[in-house]
C-alpha cells in the first residue's frame, strides 16, 4: 500500500482503517480467521454477548430472500464468563482491534456485562446492541424507546472508561432522534443499522419460514435504507457513525463513507465472501489513489447535495 492514510477516529476509538466485521457475522473471529487475515482490518465486533450463555432460537433460524436474508438466531452466545475464559486468548493472537458487542434484557445486565468486560485490556470499545429484534424480553422495546436508549447510554458510559458505541435500530421513524440522545448522554458513536424486521411464510404449510416468526432482514436488499439512515443522522447530529447494511464491496463502503460514515461494518457478505473485508480495504485504498484522496477521513460525509 502507498502512503494513503486509511486510519479513522470513531470518537476516542482509533482504527487503522474503517473496515470492521459486524456483530453476529464473524463469530468470535475463530472460524473466519482461517479464510482471511483479520489483522488487515480495522477490527472486528463480537457476536452479541449477554451475561449468561444463551442457546438461541430453535431452527429454522434463517431464510434467504431477494438480495437478502432473514435471521432469528436469538442471540445464541457463550455468555460473558466463557467469552473471557475461552475466546479472549484466541482473539489476542489475531492482532486486530476488538470491539465487544453487548446485548441484554435489562439496563442492569448491560451495566454488569460492561463492568466485567472492562477489565479485559484487549477490548478497545463496546458496541451496545439496543436493537436486536429477535429477543422477546427487551431488545425491540429498548431500541424503539428514546428514554431507554438514553438511560442505557448514560449507565453504560458510567460503568467503563472505554468508548461506547450504541447500535441503533432502523425500525423507527426518526433514527436521528436516537443518535441525538446517545450524544447527549455521552455516547462516543452510533452504529447504524441493525436489521429490519421482516418475515416470510411457506404458502403450503402456512407456517412462518422462521420458527421465531419474524426475523431481521440484512444484505444488499437493505442497503438503500441503511444509507438513508446514516445520511439522516449525519445531516442532523454531530456524532461519529459506523455505517452498516448490505455492504458487499468497496464501492458500497465508499458510498457509506460519503453518506456520513466514519467507519463501516460488513455483515452478510462475510457468509458469501469471507475475505470481503480485506478486499474492501484494498479497494478503498485503490479508490483513494485513483481520486487523489490522501486521507480516507476527508471522504467522510463528503456528499454534495
Amino acid at each position, binding site marked *: 500500500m502507498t502512503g494513503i492514510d486509511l486510519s479513522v477516529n470513531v470518537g476516542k476509538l482509533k482504527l487503522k482503517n474503517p473496515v470492521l466485521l459486524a456483530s*453476529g457475522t464473524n463469530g468470535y473471529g475463530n472460524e473466519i480467521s482461517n479464510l482471511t487475515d483479520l489483522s488487515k482490518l480495522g477490527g472486528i465486533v463480537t457476536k452479541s454477548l449477554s451475561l449468561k450463555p444463551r442457546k*438461541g432460537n430453535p*431452527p429454522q433460524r434463517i431464510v434467504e430472500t431477494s438480495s437478502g436474508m432473514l435471521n432469528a438466531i436469538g442471540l*445464541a452466545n457463550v455468555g460473558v464468563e466463557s467469552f473471557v475464559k475461552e475466546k479472549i486468548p484466541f482473539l489476542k493472537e489475531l492482532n486486530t482491534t476488538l470491539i465487544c458487542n453487548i446485548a441484554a434484557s435489562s439496563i442492569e445486565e448491560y451495566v454488569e456485562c460492561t463492568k466485567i468486560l472492562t477489565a479485559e485490556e484487549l477490548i478497545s470499545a463496546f458496541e451496545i446492541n439496543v436493537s436486536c429484534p429477535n429477543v422477546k424480553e427487551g431488545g425491540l422495546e429498548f431500541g424503539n424507546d428514546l428514554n431507554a436508549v438514553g438511560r442505557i447510554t448514560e449507565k453504560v458510559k458510567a460503568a467503563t472508561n472505554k468508548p461506547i458505541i450504541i447500535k441503533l435500530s432502523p425500525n423507527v421513524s426518526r433514527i436521528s432522534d436516537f443518535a441525538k440522545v446517545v450524544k447527549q448522554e455521552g455516547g462516543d458513536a452510533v452504529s447504524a443499522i441493525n436489521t429490519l424486521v421482516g418475515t416470510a411464510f411457506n404458502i403450503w404449510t402456512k407456517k412462518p419460514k422462521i420458527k421465531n416468526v419474524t426475523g431481521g432482514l440484512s*444484505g444488499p436488499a437493505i442497503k438503500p435504507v441503511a444509507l438513508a439512515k446514516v445520511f439522516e443522522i449525519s445531516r442532523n447530529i454531530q456524532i461519529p457513525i459506523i455505517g452498516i447494511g448490505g455492504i458487499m464491496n468497496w464501492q458500497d463502503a465508499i458510498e457509506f463513507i460519503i453518506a456520513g460514515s466514519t467507519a463501516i461494518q460488513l455483515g452478510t457478505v*462475510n*457468509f458469501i465472501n469471507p475475505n470481503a473485508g480485506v478486499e474492501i480495504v484494498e479497494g478503498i485504498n485503490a479508490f483513494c489513489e485513483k481520486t487523489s484522496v490522501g486521507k480516507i477521513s476527508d471522504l467522510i460525509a463528503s456528499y454534495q447535495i
Partner: protein
Amino acid sequence: MKQSKLKIDSIEKLESNTFLISLKSNQSNEVITPGQFYNIKVSDNDFPLLRRPFSICDFINDRLYFMFDIHGEGTKMLSQKRIGEELDLLGPLGNGFDLSGDFDTAIIIAGGIGAAPFPYLIRKMPENKNVVSFLGAKSKSAVVKYGLKKIFISTDDGSEGFHGNVVHLFKSKILDFVDKKIKIYACGPTPMLISLQEFVIQNKIDCQISTECSMACGFGICQGCPIEKSSGDGYLLVCKDGPVFNANAVKL
C-alpha cells in the same frame, strides 16, 4: 477449508433432474473426507445471494465431483453452467463420515439425491470392507446409481425394485446381515433419517447420518444451522459439528 475459483471441467445430466458436475481443483493433495461438503456460489451477483451447500460426490486426482438435483433457482442456474466457466467454492467444510470402526460391511442407505456423498465414500472405504447400497427414489426415473456398489433399489411408486421406502427395504433385508458386523452410512430426507434413527437406536446398530439444513455461511460464523443435541440442552451446528453425526447424537 479455503475459498477458491475452480473451472468447470464437465457437466452431465445423469437422470431427468439429476446432474453431475466436475471441477478441476488446483491441488490434488487436498485432504477431503467423504461426507464433507462445499459451499458454492452459483452466480457472480446478488441472485441468489447465498452460497449453496453440496456434498463432495467424488474426488479423483484433481477432479472434484458434485451430484445435484434441480431444486430451485440456484440449482437450476448451476445446471446451466458451461464447461470452462468458473465457480467460487468454499471448502471442504464440516465433519464427514468416520470410515474406521469395528465392522466388516458398510451399508449405505440413500434417499434420492442423498446418494451424492457415497461414490467418494465407497472409493475411500478400506479394501477389506464389504459395501452394500440401499437406494430409494420416488420412481424409476429418479434412480441414480452413479458410483454405487451392490445396489438394492426401492421406489415409492414401485416402478423399480422394492415398492416402498428405502428404510423398509433395508429392514426387510436385515436378516441377510445377521452374521456380519455392519455400520450404516445414511443420507436422505429428514423423515427417512428419523425412521432409520429409531430403528438403529433400538437395535444398537452403529450408524452415521448426514443431515441437511438451510445454511448461510457453512463454516460456523452465522449460527444459522442449529440441530438439537440428543442429550443435554442446546444445539450443535450442522455445518461445523456435522453434517455427519452419529445417529444417536442428535434429535431430528
